[in-house]
């Protein structure tokens, strides 16, 4: 009996597709480890795995390819080494690198049959999404948080992309709440993490995103005072390393600044004012505490215990900074700083202790450092079980993708252990990423000028008229009133390998939709042309025209209320952007040319008779699960 007997048996003809496929796995974390195991044992022919991270102790409760002895080693390399043993027949290639590096250009992405995203941050997710769309490689996107997880197939022009729905932005707090009038533990923690720690150990010009300045104009005076306070704190920073540094810091932030607040009598007319703390009193109390007691993270510390942790963590951080600064000065590197990291005990202890001391001042309840870690670190709970399920579901979607059955791919949700599915959404016509036309150009970067691009490719080859605008990330580089750049080399305009430009058709009459062109450094076959459009054999790039109002079908048909309203539209479909869920993804029937069956609600008996009626889906009202981040 052969080794792959069971896979052959169950997968049938799909097994050959699996064996011949070349896939990219981005991320070797919680989902990544599971996915790699599944891909290897399912028999995928060639697997590339990429991850920038190294292994941390807190990974070991779920990232099962890693052990104690692997801590601090690169995830991608260890994952490859461990997984290779389990199927010597699979070709595994590991990259310990950032997926956004230029070496991973479009040509490289184009070499894969499927890309799996198992990432922990939105920025990289967006990047991979954009790259996959540009080369039309299907992407299977996944995420988990605690017992919840989700899988989404992204295929250009067929399904919604990662950026088709707006993602939630993090919560922010008004500056005055954080700096002057805290009322909840989180306000004190944000103060410790986003104000005090950076002021003492960071680059203080950094503007923390957790502070919301929109209300600043209402409190001009107070804001000015706060600015002065911060200035004074910077002065104290200069005494770092001296014996009374801790006392200076303490007296400044827990006594003087508070006294100033108390003196603003208007604020405390009919409520309890904050009470400044005394360094001497706490020092006295702390001296009676046996310093060998265990300050565990689950218990709530007393004021004196917070004081001990404050002094101790401050000293640890000061030493660290001094050491790193002396190292950096020898090598003429930029001055090092210390930034908050939830898994760095020094910064974590500092934030817990100073946040609690501030809470005591304002009569707010204090928290255990375990809880503070959660609140300060945005910790996403993560366990093996959910990752296992999500990774398995990714591979099942991959089977459908390999067979080209995009209409049968589903949006999958795990919600506390139960699996729900939904049809994938159509691309959002308003989406800034996938609603544009996409193309690639090969460029001889040594020679190519902007004129080569505008004249040869855009006007001659693609038929653009005079009125067009070309933009890079930095802004407009060409429009009819800005011809100075035409003779410049593309590289002088920062148009490099693996960068993107956007072309807008500005003609009044029947303009084209926006076009995003990917730049690839590769000499075109026709030596006389330094810039050439890349087209697959037998295909020509034809940029659709912007739809006019008359073309738009009646938006009412795609309303999410109609549970099974499969809608087939002719030509370009436009739905009002307010529609949350559109069920117009044509299903199997429609794909083969016949109109999608319109079912009037789930007719129980009919469905029970025929398990092939996949049009019936569980209607999930709550579609707001955050795509989570499991590192």
């Amino acid at each position, binding site marked *: 009996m052969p*080794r792959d*007997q069971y*896979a052959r*048996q*169950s997968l049938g003809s799909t097994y050959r597709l699996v064996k011949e496929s070349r896939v990219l796995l981005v991320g070797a974390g919680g989902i990544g480890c599971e996915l790699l*195991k*599944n891909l290897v*044992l399912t028999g995928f022919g060639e697997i590339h795995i990429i991850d920038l*991270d*190294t292994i*941390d*102790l807190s990974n*070991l*409760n*779920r990232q*099962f390819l890693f052990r104690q002895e692997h801590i601090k080693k690169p995830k991608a390399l260890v994952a490859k080494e461990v997984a290779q043993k*389990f199927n010597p027949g699979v070709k595994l290639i590991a990259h310990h690198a950032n997926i956004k590096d230029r070496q991973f250009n479009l040509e490289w992405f184009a070499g894969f049959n499927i890309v799996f995203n198992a990432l922990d941050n939105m920025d990289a997710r967006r990047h991979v999404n954009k790259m996959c769309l540009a080369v039309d490689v299907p992407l299977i996107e996944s995420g988990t948080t605690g017992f919840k997880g989700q899988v989404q197939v992204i295929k250009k022009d067929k399904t919604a992309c990662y950026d088709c729905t707006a993602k939630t932005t993090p919560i922010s707090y008004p500056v005055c709440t954080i700096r002057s*009038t805290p*009322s*909840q533990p989180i306000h004190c923690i944000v103060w410790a993490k986003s104000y005090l720690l950076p002021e003492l150990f960071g680059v203080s010009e950094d503007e923390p995103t957790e502070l919301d300045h929109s209300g600043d104009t209402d409190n001009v005076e107070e804001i000015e005072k706060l600015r002065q306070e911060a200035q004074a704190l910077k002065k104290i920073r200069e005494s770092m390393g001296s014996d009374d540094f801790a006392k200076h810091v303490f007296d400044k932030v827990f006594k003087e600044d508070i006294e100033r607040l108390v003196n603003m009598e208007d604020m405390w007319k009919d*409520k*309890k004012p904050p009470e400044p703390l005394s360094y001497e009193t706490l020092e006295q109390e702390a001296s009676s505490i046996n*310093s060998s007691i265990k*300050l*565990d*993270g689950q218990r709530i510390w007393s004021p004196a215990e917070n004081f001990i942790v404050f002094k*101790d*963590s401050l000293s640890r951080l000061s*030493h*660290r900074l001094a*050491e790193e600064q002396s190292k950096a000065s020898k090598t003429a590197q930029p001055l090092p700083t210390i930034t908050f*990291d939830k*898994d760095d*005990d020094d910064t974590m202890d500092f934030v817990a202790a100073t946040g609690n001391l501030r809470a005591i001042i304002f*009569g*707010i309840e204090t928290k255990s450092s*375990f809880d503070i*870690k959660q609140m300060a670190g945005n910790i996403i*709970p*993560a*366990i*093996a*079980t*959910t*990752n*296992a399920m999500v990774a*398995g579901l990714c*591979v*099942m*979607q991959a089977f459908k993708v390999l067979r080209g059955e995009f209409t049968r791919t*589903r949006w999958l949700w795990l919600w506390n*252990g*139960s*699996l729900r599915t939904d049809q994938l959404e159509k691309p959002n016509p308003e989406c800034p990423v996938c609603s544009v036309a996409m193309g690639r150009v090969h460029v001889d970067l040594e020679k190519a000028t902007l004129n080569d691009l505008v004249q040869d490719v855009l006007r001659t080859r693609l038929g653009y008229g005079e009125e067009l605008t070309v933009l890079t990330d930095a802004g407009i580089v060409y429009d009819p009133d800005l011809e100075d750049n035409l003779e410049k080399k593309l590289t002088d305009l920062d148009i490099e390998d693996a960068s993107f430009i956007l072309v807008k058709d500005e003609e009044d009459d029947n303009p084209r939709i926006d076009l995003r062109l990917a730049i690839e450094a590769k000499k075109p076959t026709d030596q006389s042309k330094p810039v050439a459009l890349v087209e697959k054999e037998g295909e020509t790039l034809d940029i659709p025209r912007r739809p006019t109002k008359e073309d738009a079908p009646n938006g009412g048909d795609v309303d999410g209320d109609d549970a099974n309203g499969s809608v087939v539209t002719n030509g370009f479909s436009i739905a009002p952007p307010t529609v949350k869920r559109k069920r117009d993804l044509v299903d199997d029937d429609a794909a083969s040319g016949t109109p999608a069956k319109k079912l009037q609600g*789930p007719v*129980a008996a009919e469905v*029970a*008779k025929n*398990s092939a*009626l996949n049009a019936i889906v569980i209607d999930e009202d709550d579609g707001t699960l955050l795509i989570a981040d499991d590192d």
Partner: protein
Amino acid sequence: MTTEIAPRDVTPPPLQAPTAKEKKYDRQLRLWAASGQRALEDSHVLLIVGDEYQGSNSSVAGVEALKNLVLPSVGSFTIADSAQVTVSDLGVNFFLDSDSLHKSRAEETRRLLSELNPDVTGHAITTPLAEWLPVEGSLKPYNLIIACAPIPSEILQRICFYALQSSIPAIYVQSAGFYASFSIQLPSAFPIVDTHPDPESTQDLRLLAPWPELDAAVDSLGDISSLPDHDHGHIPYILILLYFLREWKANHNGNSPSTFKEKTEFRDLVRSRARVDNPEGGEENFDEACAAVLKSITPPPIDSGCKEMMAMHLCTSLSSDSANFWVIANAIKQFYETHGVLPLPGSLPDMKATSAEYIKLQSLYKAKARSDVAEVTTTVRHTESLLSRETTIPESEIEAFCRNASHVRVLTNPAHEPFPSLRLGSGDHKTISRIASLLENDWEALLPVFVGLNARANPSSPLDVTALTSDPELLETLTKATAEVERVSGGELHNISSVIGGMVAQEAIKLLTRQYVPVDGTCVFDGIRSKSGVYKI
């Protein structure tokens, strides 16, 4: 993402950093806390693989489930499997390597699983089930049994019987090709205190049943129309609502708004009193009050699960060896009968208010919660002495119960029913007719998968699918599913077993930690359509 930290050699801090263990399990402690972790670490899970050779005997699903329990640090596990490793095992089971060939599968998977986590102890039993299972006390060490299908009826029966008798849960898992399923057999009563309800649903503000101190806080507002703008704009919305409820009641024969129409009218009343002649042109605290009307002007919540619990025989008739849970449940019941409400959970949402006002209101809710816990504790202590119980129930257990009282659940298996696969195998008529009636409303069309997986539960008399339906199309679906299972002849697809192993472990964690509500019944998974459903068969 972790930031690299340069090595340093300063003197070690006088404080002990969080233990390595706390750090390693940090991400899961966020889900089930230290109490859940302790319960998990006190557990010993037994994985049983059947002796009769049929493909890989769902052993990959079982081992994958164990993997997901070893990683979060279950105390111990034991694998009972008499098979030797074959070449096809190597292609489907990640926890075997090429050195494992022809060796004991139990021993080899134990070895490789143990490598995952040095905190976990693994054991292997390599003798056939029929030899060791009948030995007196053979199942005693375990508090959860996971059995991998197929297992012969007489053996499975023994496992089910033991689990019911000793009140431990058991799970039966099946995986073949693209199809998989698992069933949970619960003890006759399975109480869960910490069900982790949606935080939104746990809010209990007592707006319609204020206690004297909360009333006094409303009194102290005086006539709010005479307050200066700043104070008026900082009254916590809870007090605003209570204030206007008094006014409403005075004009409505002492009744609170109860219908949707009345609540909307009440909301209009509140809105009309917000001041708009200020620079902001409105008041945020009044906006919050209006937004909370529909959700918060409701009688104190009590879940049906809690009501069911209070009606249970175990709750009403205590004995000296009643579980702690029931002693507290009984005290909660007495509390509810006396006051018409459950103990107050005591938490307060964020709201627009001055810090001082917010903190004052918060301590009001906390104090009430504490005094409710104290009352329940008194009842518990009284019961303990009445029943002359030897140990006292820890304070923390009573407190946790009070905090979650409204959402406590007791799952039951009153008829002591074993796994449906076992009942089907013995041709139980009740089970067959239950499946037949479930098939009539099986919108997800997943039951045929379960039927397919169990058609040969009793090899000597295969299931007659015509007994399940007379509908020709449905009959064809059932026959197809059965044929698909036969075609793959017990061969597992790693990926499917990995998914079902994840699901089984997830439920196992719920059962072992006694947190969250586990699947009550049979979960069926169809990997061809990526669909799953839960059935009470």
